[in-house]
Every structure is written in structure tokens, then in C-alpha cells.
């Protein structure tokens, strides 16, 4: 399936969960400060291991940075 992550298109196996995605992108063991939205909806951390992504999903992975 093709999904967009932080504005970039990626191809992954279907059925991939949010946690799988974070692991593949090397953000899986980040402790705290991360948040994920799929198609403009926040997916809570407890749901990461169970939420399965589908084709054409748009994913945003964010963290807090310097800001005014």
C-alpha cells in the first residue's frame, strides 16, 4: 500500500500498524514527546500497536521543538 508520511510517499505492506511504521522509521523506541495523526485524526499512543494503516492514508508524526 502507498501511504504519505510527513508529506512523503512510502510503499509498505498492508496491515502495517502505527507502531510498525514508527519502528521502521527508527522512531519506535522514542520515549515520550511524539504524537501521530492519521487522516487528520490523532491516534493515541495506546492505539499505536493496534491501529492498522490503509492505502492512501496520510500520516503526520510530530514532536515538540523550539518555538516562540
Amino acid at each position, binding site marked *: 500500500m502507498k501511504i504519505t*508520511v*510527513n*508529506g*512523503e510517499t512510502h510503499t509498505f505492506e498492508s496491515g502495517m500498524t502505527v507502531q510498525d511504521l514508527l519502528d521502521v*522509521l*527508527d*522512531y519506535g523506541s*522514542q520515549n*515520550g*514527546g*511524539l*504524537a*501521530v*495523526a492519521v487522516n*487528520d485524526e*490523532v491516534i*493515541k*499512543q495506546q492505539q499505536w500497536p493496534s491501529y492498522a494503516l490503509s492505502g492512501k492514508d496520510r500520516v*503526520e*508524526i*510530530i*514532536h*515538540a*521543538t*523550539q*518555538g*516562540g
Partner: protein
Amino acid sequence: MSSKLTIADRTFNSRLIIGSARFPNPDTMGRAIEASGAEMVTVAIRRVNLKNKEQDQENILNYINREEYFLLPNTAGCFTAKDAVLTAQLAREALETNWVKLEVIGDDDTLFPDVPELLKAAEQLLADDFIVLPYCNDDPVTCRKLSDMGCAAVMPLGAPIGSGMGIRNPYNLQIIREQIAVPLIVDAGVGTASDAARAMELGADGVLMNSAISQAKHPVKMARAMKLAIEAGRLAWEAGRMPRRLYAKASSPIEGVIETSPDD
């Protein structure tokens, strides 16, 4: 000692809120925040860099201790209510706080707010149980709408973000102070200590600043100056200034002045 600052369900000793951006390096940022006495620090919400983890805009949690400072996420960079609302929701998840500094920008050059989108975003976030601190222009009508709908504070600008121009419209800020009861935080445009003191003398409950400190030649020194300025301005406000007059009123008594012999 002047009174403490209460916003929503939190009370702060410091009336200075500091931003974490545009510091020359993390060490200076840490020391400046400490020198400022600020207890609340704003942060932005940004995508992690997936291509190059080393070049990632660093996770601010690596540099600021959440046990020591209350982190207030902003929605900087958002131009629509939709973007701002999602950003706030992501921030809530990432930082475990329902507090948000709401910014919905209408113009790239001035960074003035898009008022209709700002009001829409504020309404949606309030309905979703956020504590909303909206950055807005110095318009008393907008401030009143934001206050009436339930925002925890209003945050009118002193001048455009990062401009350092100071308090451009003290008269509007005075009107806003008179008309609204929620905490008033002057946010944006402060350039030096006297600007911050001025804001407090106008009756502001606090000042939010970033570039004024981070872009000073000596940020740590400026942070200390700002701390003192805000304390001084607040004390002056609480002390109740003397009235202004067009004409003079002698300070020294009129009676008992000596006379010399008249010239011939």
C-alpha cells in the same frame, strides 16, 4: 512583593513567559530561561525528520526539563483553523497538556492573525476542553470575543512577532485592559526591557517574549533585565501612578522663599 499570576487553574510567581526559539545554542537557551525567572516556556510542534535523523529539528524535551518548567505548545505556522486545531490536538498528545497558545496566522510578512480563523479555532478547541491562550492583534473587539467565548487569557501583540518594535499601540492595550477581565498577556514585538515594563505599567498581567531575549547580543543578560523590568512595571502598576498634567505643579513649597534687595 507583587501578586502572583493566575491563568485557568495554574498560578505562577513569574509574569514572564518565554519562547524557546532562535537562541544561538542550547546552553545559552537554558541559562537565559533560568535568568528570566520564567516558569512557562513555549514550544512549537513540527514534523520529525524522517530522512535524516541527525538533521532533525531536535526534540525540545532533550533540552528543557519538564519537572522544572511548564511547556506551553503553540500552533505557530498554522494559517487555518483546521491546521491549528489538529496541531493543538497533536500537542496535547505529545506533551500531555490541554494548554495551547493558539496562533492562526493571516499574513506571511506581518504574521498578524487571521481573525475569523482564529475565532473558529478557539471555539473548536474550547469545545474540546482545551485551555486556550490566543495570540491576537491589539483589537479590543477581537479580545472581547475571545474572552467571552471562554479563552483563559487574551494575548494581544505589542508589535509584529520578532520585530522588536515594542508597544506600538498602548492606547488599544489600555482599552483592552479596561474592557476585559481575563488575564491579559502582551505577546510579541517586545524588544527591550522598557517595552516589557511599559506593557506591565499599562496593566498587563504578563508578557510573552522570545526574540527580545534570544536575539539580544547577550541573551542571558537581557533575560535578567526583562525579569527586573516586568517586576518593576508590575509594582508600578500596583502602586498606582501619579496623574499626568499638561502644566507644572511645583514640588517644593511656595511659602518661605527668601528675598534679596532689589537691583537699582
